[in-house]
């Protein structure tokens, strides 16, 4: 009988530690119970990825490819870069048992609490006579589900790989998070791989494979940030539609990618992130990273990226009588494109068991996008390009393959307000975010994954609703004051 990792004294100690963490989180959750309740806050639409179908295919434990799943280590990165192939002449499906099917499910049953303040709520529930809007905190808690990922990924043939990822929210409303085919090692060179479809941008620090799951902590603020008021829908963390040329050295120490993408933030059907028609333009994403071996400290990787895109400022329209004396105007195609860009540097640094992930990012939009007017019009006096600088420092401490602590601090500062925010405080739109948590993987083998996940996160958004979406649909009471939003989460993250 082969032994699994024994649950002995060490494991018991960590279990007790995790229980303590859970108790602390529950204690935090019990705070502010006097706050009025509202509708359950939505979880962010972030989909994180780990694929035990590959572990089953190759007989490797989760820890072979992941520092702590879903985050990839360099071996997993090489496997992914190589088109989900190990290169042992057993990658093609013809070598698999016919009953093997590359499907992975992932969902996280959980208890969580979401709380957001500075929201405009009725002083008298129901908004009856005498009720006025006052600043209030909306808090909700309870048992819940995350969304679900239904992964299929692997090789269609040697050097032809694919991903199909239908993904749902917690109410089983589905969309295609990823869908692509990739031609790997073109002409026998790892420097040429061509991907076609919808995919994650080739960023050094992946939001799709990170360790945070809570409502506020489950997104990188910088990856989804646009200065409030701008008409840009772009999010660097959103999967995009297009084609990517990528390459890497044999051990993936050196990596590059060049992507050409539709200018619609990855929304299928020629529709933008705002639901309006997309334009006919194309964006470009560039990424490069280099890893260095630092002896016993581990592998150090640094990289840079840049995204150059454009968004429409007005639409081709069709205005027709609506039959009741009025007219109906249909928006047809986005026109009057104006540019924007995002650029940044990032790192993945190891100090033995401590991993540090720093990122700095700068965003800049055309003044027309900040003013929200047609490019055929003259810019109003004082209109300047919205700009911001942000970043984060994330840390993971791997006690061993089954226990990891993680934390992150984030900051975004608006360096130039868009025209539509004239008169707002200069720090309007700034963000501060703090998250920490702990994951315990009680099993670590090659068939499935299970993790006990506990996490606390809190975000301060100056004058606007948090990017997590909590409080969505409710007005901020005072744009002069910050909105604090926090999340507490305890769940079982499983992946089969």
């Amino acid at each position: 009988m082969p032994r699994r990792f024994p649950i002995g004294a060490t494991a018991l100690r960590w279990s007790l530690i995790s229980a303590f963490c859970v108790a602390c989180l529950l204690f935090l959750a019990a705070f502010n119970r006097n706050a009025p309740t509202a509708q359950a806050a939505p979880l962010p639409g972030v989909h994180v990825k780990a694929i035990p179908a590959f572990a089953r295919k190759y007989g490797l434990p989760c820890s072979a490819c992941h520092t702590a799943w879903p985050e990839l280590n360099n071996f997993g990165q090489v496997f992914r870069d190589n088109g989900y192939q190990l290169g042992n002449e057993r990658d093609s499906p013809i070598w698999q048992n016919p009953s093997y099917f590359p499907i992975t499910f992932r969902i996280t049953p959980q208890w969580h609490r979401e709380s957001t303040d500075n929201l405009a709520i009725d002083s008298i529930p129901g908004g009856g006579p005498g009720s006025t809007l006052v600043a209030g905190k909306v808090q909700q808690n309870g048992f819940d589900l995350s969304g679900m990922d239904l992964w299929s990924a692997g090789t269609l043939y040697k050097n032809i790989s694919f991903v199909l990822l239908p993904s749902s929210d917690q109410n089983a409303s589905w969309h295609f998070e990823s869908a692509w085919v990739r031609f790997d090692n073109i002409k026998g060179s790892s420097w040429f791989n061509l991907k076609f479809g919808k995919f994650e941008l080739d960023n050094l620090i992946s939001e799709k494979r990170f360790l945070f799951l809570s409502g506020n902590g489950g997104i990188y603020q910088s990856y989804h940030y646009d200065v409030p008021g701008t008409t840009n829908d772009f999010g660097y963390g959103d999967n995009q539609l297009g084609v990517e040329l990528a390459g890497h050295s044999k051990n993936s120490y050196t990596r590059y990618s060049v992507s050409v993408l539709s200018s619609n933030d990855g929304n299928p059907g020629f529709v933008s992130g705002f639901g309006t028609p997309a334009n006919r333009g194309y964006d470009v994403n560039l990424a490069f990273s280099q890893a260095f071996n630092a002896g016993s400290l581990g592998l150090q990787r640094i990289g840079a990226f840049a995204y150059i895109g454009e968004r429409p400022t007005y639409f081709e329209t069709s205005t027709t009588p609506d039959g009741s004396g009025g007219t109906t105007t249909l928006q047809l195609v986005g026109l009057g494109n104006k540019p924007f860009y995002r650029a940044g540097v990032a790192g993945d640094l190891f100090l033995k068991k401590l991993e540090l992930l720093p990122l700095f990012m700068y965003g800049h939009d055309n003044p027309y996008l900040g003013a929200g007017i047609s490019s055929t019009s003259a810019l109003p006096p004082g209109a300047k390009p919205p700009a911001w600088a942000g970043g984060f420092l994330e840390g993971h401490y791997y006690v061993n393959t089954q226990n990891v602590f993680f934390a992150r601090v984030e900051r975004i500062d608006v360096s130039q307000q868009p025209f539509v925010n004239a008169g707002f405080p200069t720090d309007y739109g700034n963000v501060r975010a703090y998250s920490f948590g702990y994951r315990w993987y009680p099993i670590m083998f090659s068939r499935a994954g299970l993790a006990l996940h506990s996490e606390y996160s809190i975000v301060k958004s100056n004058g606007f609703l948090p990017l997590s979406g909590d409080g969505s649909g409710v007005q901020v009471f005072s744009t002069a004051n910050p909105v604090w939003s926090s999340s507490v989460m305890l769940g079982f993250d499983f992946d089969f």
Partner: protein
Amino acid sequence: MKTKIAIITMTVGVALLYAAQLPSGSAQESHVGTLTGNAASGKQFYKRYCIGCHGPSGDGQGENAPWIDPKPRDFTAATFKCRSTPTGTLPTDEDLDNAVTRGFVTTNMPSWNPLTPQQRADLVAYIKTFSPRWKTDKPGIPIHIPPETPVTIQSVLHGRELFQKMECWKCHGPAGHGDGPSAATLTDSKDQPIRPYNFSTGSRFKCGETNRDLYRIFMTGLDGTPMPSFADVIQPNDAWDLVHFLRTMQTMQTPDIALWKKYSSEHASEIKPIGPDAGSGGN
């Protein structure tokens, strides 16, 4: 006082006895190039990367072992296929590091090249803790590999003669497809069925991909498998001829294959088949 002296004497004696059992180079370390691997660090990496197949005890009985063919290496036996050292001897640390770095084509063992050199050196150090043999034996001395002889049609033809004469075809098959008459009966040192190498599967062998690697395989054998060492049977020049012929069985573009294709098309009637009806030697 006498009791104290007795205790001190016994303690020192036990310590000396323990020290005497340690080999000159500690089995808790490995030495790969300028790197020194540490077994304690290697244990963490072993748990992370290797335990699923090779098992917690290094005996090749990991949870995946029942479903893997060929079976994972049993480190407790300290028998390794790919070595630079003579048959029956322990491999060098570099040999183990090469194996971990290269992986084994057509098996479940991937290339661990993405790990850092230090991590691999640590793994090698830990792998050596599974067998007491590492404490009693020293690794063999790597064999000498002379410079490769020129690739000529005479060399290829002589290699073909040797392939017939030494009965390589009985296991590897007349065309090198691993389907010789003995192939189905072969077992390894763990009594597990084992298939001879199929030369048409690609350009790589389990123990490397260069001509020097192929030469080394002849001369060291693959311990734990039916593939013997030919170091005492053939001369270095003969071994190079055999290398040149075996390259003609592969599905790739090499000078050996080009020579062989040209010759075989021009002398088809003169070429005797390889196999039981060919007699010993001849083309």
